[in-house]
């Protein structure tokens, strides 16, 4: 049984020039104790997907326009009332944001921000909540935690802030943590520390983590399985090593090829020419087709095939490319 299972999720954003389908029929699932990575470039809908799970659209005019978000033991989050969803947030599913500076209320002391989540879901005295917050900070290896409780966010360094945000997310031992680019704003040595922290958490408590990132390296480093998104859709998903070592979708291939470090210093990198399509009026057919070097006439005509395995044998490594369908037949 999956912990979280997403089927055909559609999320729409209103913009001055029309309605943008930032998430257009996304499906994936996350198993208990698994770190699931979602990668893609900016604007591909990876962040919107995760925000749609808890309906946290950052005040943007957005809505879930279709699909189901099944959380084990709770049901379809997409069908829940805002009030019911509030019960789930923080308790069953926690969220970690990209920029720890903006994710913390600048005018509230750290301590209160942490105890807030505890006191929301448990009837507990102020003192006990504070003690719990202190323990949480220790758990995420914050030095001199007593002092930090009475600090304001701007008085902490970036790494410390992200630890505080993680402590908040861990407060009620949620079964699932959704982390939206949790290390993008951090320096690489600190990123390393934070990723270890998340992994340690999973290893100790079996917490599932959905990790959103644009950095394939990060996925490679800590994820078990992954999905690659392009223009609002999942184009490929599977176990991390399989996807990264033998990518089957041309987009994944191109993305990897564009990275320095994949080729020798004397070879040129292979950038992806062109730009991602508009999400307001996306092209019919495969959305990557206009930039795809392997594109066929068929690619732009019909809708792309559903995710399917290249070798016909489902090891969970599936993609949505027509070429693979032609070669190996439907899954």
């Amino acid at each position, binding site marked *: 049984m999956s912990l979280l299972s997403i089927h055909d999720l559609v999320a729409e954003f209103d913009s001055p020039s029309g309605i943008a389908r930032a998430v257009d029929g996304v499906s994936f699932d996350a198993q208990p104790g698994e770190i699931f990575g979602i990668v893609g470039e900016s604007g591909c809908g990876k962040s919107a997907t995760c925000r749609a799970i808890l309906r946290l659209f950052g005040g943007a005019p957005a809505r879930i326009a279709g699909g189901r978000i099944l959380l084990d033991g709770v049901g379809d989050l997409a069908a829940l009332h805002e009030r019911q969803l509030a019960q789930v947030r923080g308790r069953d599913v926690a969220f970690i944001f990209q920029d720890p500076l903006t994710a913390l209320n600048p005018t509230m002391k750290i301590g209160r921000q942490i105890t807030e989540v505890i006191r929301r879901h448990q009837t507990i005295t102020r003192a006990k909540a504070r003690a719990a917050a202190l323990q949480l900070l220790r758990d995420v290896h914050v030095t001199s935690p007593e002092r930090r409780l009475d600090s304001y966010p701007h008085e902490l360094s970036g790494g410390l802030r992200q630890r505080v945000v993680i402590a908040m997310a861990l407060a009620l031992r949620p079964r699932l943590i959704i982390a939206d680019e949790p290390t993008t704003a951090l320096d690489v040595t600190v990123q390393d520390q934070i990723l270890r922290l998340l992994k340690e958490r999973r290893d100790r408590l079996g917490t599932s983590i959905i990790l959103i990132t644009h950095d394939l390296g990060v996925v490679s480093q*800590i994820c078990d399985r992954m999905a690659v998104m392009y223009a609002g859709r999942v184009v490929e998903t599977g176990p991390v090593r399989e996807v990264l070592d033998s990518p089957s979708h041309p987009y994944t291939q191109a*993305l990897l090829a564009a990275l320095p470090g994949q080729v020798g210093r004397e070879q040129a990198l292979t*950038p992806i020419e062109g730009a991602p399509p508009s999400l307001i009026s996306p092209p019919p057919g495969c959305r990557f087709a206009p930039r795809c070097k392997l594109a066929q006439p068929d690619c732009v005509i019909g809708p792309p095939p559903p995710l399917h395995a290249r070798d016909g044998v489902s090891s969970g490594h599936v993609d949505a490319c027509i070429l693979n369908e032609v070669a190996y037949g439907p899954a």
Partner: protein
Amino acid sequence: MAQLDFQRVERRFPVKRGLLDMVARRDRVYLHAVRGVDLRVSPGDILGIVGESGCGKSTLARIGVGLQQSDGGQVIFDGRPLAGPDPAGRLQMVFQDPYSSLNPRITIGAQLEEVVAHYFPKLPRAKRAARVSEILAEVSLDPETALKFPHALSGGQRQRVSIARALCPAPEILVADEPVSALDASVQAQIINLLKRLNREKGLTIIFISHDMNVVCYLCDRVAVMYLGEIVELQNSQDLFGDPRHPYTRALIAAVPDVRRAQSLAEPITGEIPDPFAVPRGCRFATRCPLAETACQNPQEMLPLGGAGGVRCWKAVPSD
């Protein structure tokens, strides 16, 4: 080909002193952004400068083009101390943010023509547009781009326009301050390729500032690693990545996630960059260094390595 030579360059920013500080005759407090940097940029090289945020790499870049003055030491360019941007435009710069690096109210063509007109005042007006088209072609942009306003371009295109603008005066050295950090990986490759091509084909010297070890490793011939305003290690790219000597360099490389690497990692370094106002007196990395000893509390000198390289750690050089 002119040479750029940093000699014990210092840059410190005075911390704003209040009235009370003055009354109390407290000493001025300085933030040392750059400290004792010795660096020689050879013609035709791509020199990388890497480091985490706040290490002083951007300040160094600005000193290198004359945007800022050094407080100590000097920058020698073409045999003379550099006092401000080069009048002949031989030193140019590309900035990080593709969105604020172009004037939003002027067309691309006009912005470039302005530069061409400034450096080649004798060029007839009619030929300026042609020259601009040439330069645009050089950075792989259509001539029609000249008619567009910056907002009509994608991030990658803008960054190419920025490079085009820097190319207009026909520079010898291009300082690129994190030119690809704001770009997606797929677009990033275009800019990297472009820089590489400019270096190979035109012999343009490039100082490439970045925090991305992978990019630096791929692009640069020589790499300087900075930590808290100091260069801690300077080596040929291959040597540096193949055999990093300074503990910080090692930690930095180890921390970079690699698509090819599975989940196991080396031991990470602990802590974060110290408060720049309270830097350790001795080795600046000592507070986080797994190898730190008492001797590390002495100031560290740059010890020579093979070639023109060096490392600022007494433990890094084999004792043989």
